[in-house]
């Protein structure tokens, strides 16, 4: 079974909360839920919609075809009714959003008490919500499926929350950020817990101040993380380079959205892999880690703290809007490792410097420092091999191999169900696991990315010498994430 419910309306009408309530309730019943948000860069009005997909077996993405359309305004009906399945149901009319919650719960044969419980947890406007929900529940006469408790322990997880959790578990002391979608949810999440968990969250005057303040705090020995999206990251690059030469540990959370420049603020893309790998002038060691689901968000943020402290380097956690703002239901328990605070206050320098931190132009010293930086790169490469740098899914040893990274993972996992293909997900973009060559050799490689220039494809070619044919590149660059059913068709066309 796999059902798709779309909630649409104007900003401010509250489609978010409807989906979250239903999602929470379904997860508690042991169902797998994937819930994503499509919203515009405006505060009131416009058209926002959320899609909730659920199933009794693991899922990680939405489909294009809709079973139930909840239309909080007329516009929603106009825009989405063409995507309805034949037997699909439209819920509309002028009602408060909890009225629709009532109808939905009835449609899925969930008993009213499960809804009541969610409303109680909401706390706000309980009486009013309850009245509306009851009305909807009573008025609905149909049902589309019978949801019953699956006795299945599943967590309803969100990318941004898990990035934050990973940072807290790694011993975060100070988080600096300047607001920028889609990195802001982490700022909000971390800000909320700062007193309870005893760390500090600050918003300096701009991203240049963010990274330079972070470096100031980091050289006192504090564990520091900063967060931004593409435009802010551009502003940080000189500071990144300074962290590189001065040997300052720094975790950088980079949440991608479509560029160039202001691009499309509230939509998704994977266009910043190249800049994450290359930002900052000169040559210095760094890491770039790309999670593909919320559990990996938590684990890779944790690993970023570990590596940045151990090797005194900047370490970038590369996320995107789709993963940062969607909700996933997963069963895995993240693996968290401890990291030390390795920095003691001494003389740090943005110039080449002696071992005492004194500026130098001595040729021998410059060469020595470069070799030390190179050595870090080699040591990191070696140690990274002990970590999960890539993952294999699908049919082992198939002649077809899908390669991808980051948030596309979800749609790919769902799209390849039953297909004759293996799927290789890369998590460590830098250092890059060169050994994946053994999987790529003599395969029909299909590359899937949320960008226009196939940046992972370029990276694979650079590191392994293997070229991926253009006709085998499935690239989406309209700001939207892949949908499982559409992607399934695209993959099928390319299978050998």
């Amino acid at each position: 079974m796999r059902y798709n419910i779309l909630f649409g309306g104007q900003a401010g009408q509250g489609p978010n909360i409807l989906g979250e309530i239903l999602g929470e309730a379904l997860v508690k019943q042991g169902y797998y839920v994937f819930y994503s948000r499509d919203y515009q860069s405006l505060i009131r009005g416009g058209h926002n919609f959320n899609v909730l997909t659920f199933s009794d077996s693991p899922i990680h993405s939405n489909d294009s075809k809709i079973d139930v359309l909840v239309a909080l305004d007329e516009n929603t009906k106009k825009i989405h009714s063409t995507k309805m399945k034949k037997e699909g149901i439209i819920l509309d009319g002028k009602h408060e959003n909890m009225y629709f919650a009532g109808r939905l719960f009835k449609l899925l044969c969930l008993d009213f008490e499960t809804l009541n419980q969610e409303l109680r947890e909401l706390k706000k406007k309980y009486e009013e919500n309850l009245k509306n929900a009851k009305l909807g529940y009573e008025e609905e006469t149909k049902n589309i499926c019978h949801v019953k408790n699956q006795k299945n322990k599943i967590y309803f997880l969100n990318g941004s929350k898990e990035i934050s959790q990973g940072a807290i578990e790694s011993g975060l002391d100070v988080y600096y950020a300047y607001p920028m979608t889609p990195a802001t949810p982490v700022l909000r999440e971390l800000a909320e817990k700062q007193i309870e968990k005893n760390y500090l969250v600050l918003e300096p005057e701009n991203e240049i101040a963010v990274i330079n303040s972070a470096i100031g705090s980091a050289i006192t020995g504090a564990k520091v993380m900063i967060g931004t999206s593409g435009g802010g990251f551009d502003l940080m690059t000189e500071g990144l380079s300074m962290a590189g030469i001065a040997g300052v540990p720094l975790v950088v959370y980079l949440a991608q959205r479509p560029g160039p420049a202001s691009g499309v603020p509230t939509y998704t893309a994977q266009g910043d892999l190249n800049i994450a790998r290359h930002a900052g002038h000169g040559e210095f060691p760094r890491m770039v880690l790309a999670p593909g689901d919320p559990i990996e968000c938590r684990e890779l943020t944790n690993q970023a703290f570990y590596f940045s402290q151990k090797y005194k380097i900047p370490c970038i956690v590369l996320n995107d809007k789709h993963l940062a703002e969607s909700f996933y239901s997963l069963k895995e328990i993240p693996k968290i490792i401890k990291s030390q605070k390795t920095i003691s206050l001494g003389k740090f320098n943005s110039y080449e410097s002696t071992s005492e931190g004194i500026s130098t132009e001595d040729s021998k010293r410059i060469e020595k420092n470069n070799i030390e930086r190179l050595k870090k790169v080699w040591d990191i490469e070696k140690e990274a091999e002990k970590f999960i740098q890539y993952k294999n899914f699908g049919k082992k040893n198939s002649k077809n191999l899908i390669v991808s990274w980051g948030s596309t993972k979800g749609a790919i996992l769902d799209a390849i169900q039953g297909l004759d293909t293996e799927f290789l997900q890369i998590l460590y973009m830098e250092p890059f696991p060169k050994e994946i060559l053994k999987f790529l050799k003599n395969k029909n490689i299909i590359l899937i990315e949320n960008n226009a220039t196939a940046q992972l494809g370029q990276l694979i070619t650079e590191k392994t010498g293997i070229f991926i044919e253009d006709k085998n590149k499935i690239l989406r660059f309209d700001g939207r994430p892949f949908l499982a059913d559409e992607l399934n068709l695209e993959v099928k066309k390319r299978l050998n």
Partner: protein
Amino acid sequence: MNISTNVKSTWCPGCPNFMILAGVKKALENSGKKQNEMVIVSGIGCHAKIFDYLNLPGLNSLHGRVPPVCFGLKMGNPNLSVLGFSGDGDAYAEGLEHTIHSARYNSNWIYIVHNNQVFSLTTGQPTPTTEIGYKDKTTPLGVKTFPLNPIKLMLASGASFVARVFADIQQVENVIKEALKHKGFCFIEILQPCLIFHPETLKYKNKIYDLQKSGHKKQDFQAAMKKVEEFDYNEIKSDTKIPVGIFYQVQKPIFEEQFPQLQKLGPLGWKGIKR
């Protein structure tokens, strides 16, 4: 205590930066603070070489970015005494926004700007405080824009300690001693004539007069705003007198004292927090 290093100085012979260095050393060596409680940050320019000549920890940072690094040090460990050294290029051109916001934040650190009214290390191009008509190889048509008055800007931005001195050992030592006693952000501009690219400003030495000796009340904001008008950074050749000393000093809420997380930290700052 001796906070000298044995690094050979690369400042030009006779550079007033030597006077500043000597004044800073005297103030810090006699401050009663331990060597590992004091941290220095420098920007990029001739002035920034001071980082190598002081045996104190810290960061020789980027052009213009001294304030956020100093701020970050205080957030990492509020128990440190932090001194930042900038040039006028650093403070008023590349990093002006940080200079303004630092005054607004009022975190407890000392910002020292060596103002020679030129970019010296890049061989004498004009900065935001260079006078109209100044020419160098990159500005053969001469500077057309009126200089910024940084003291006025700092007063307007809410700085709780605003001072200007000449690059004289005694003046530098005294003002840093006062700044170390002040709780909150201290802005100190040092008029530091560049002998190579802006030698006319050496005459400042004979034009300065001491605000405190002349009866200026440093807690009086309006009086301070009047005093800053006496020298506009443009009339560098005229005989107008240049007031030096503390223009303004007032107690304002300190940034780091308003965060309970920072109040709990011991001498090592966050480094001492085990989780």
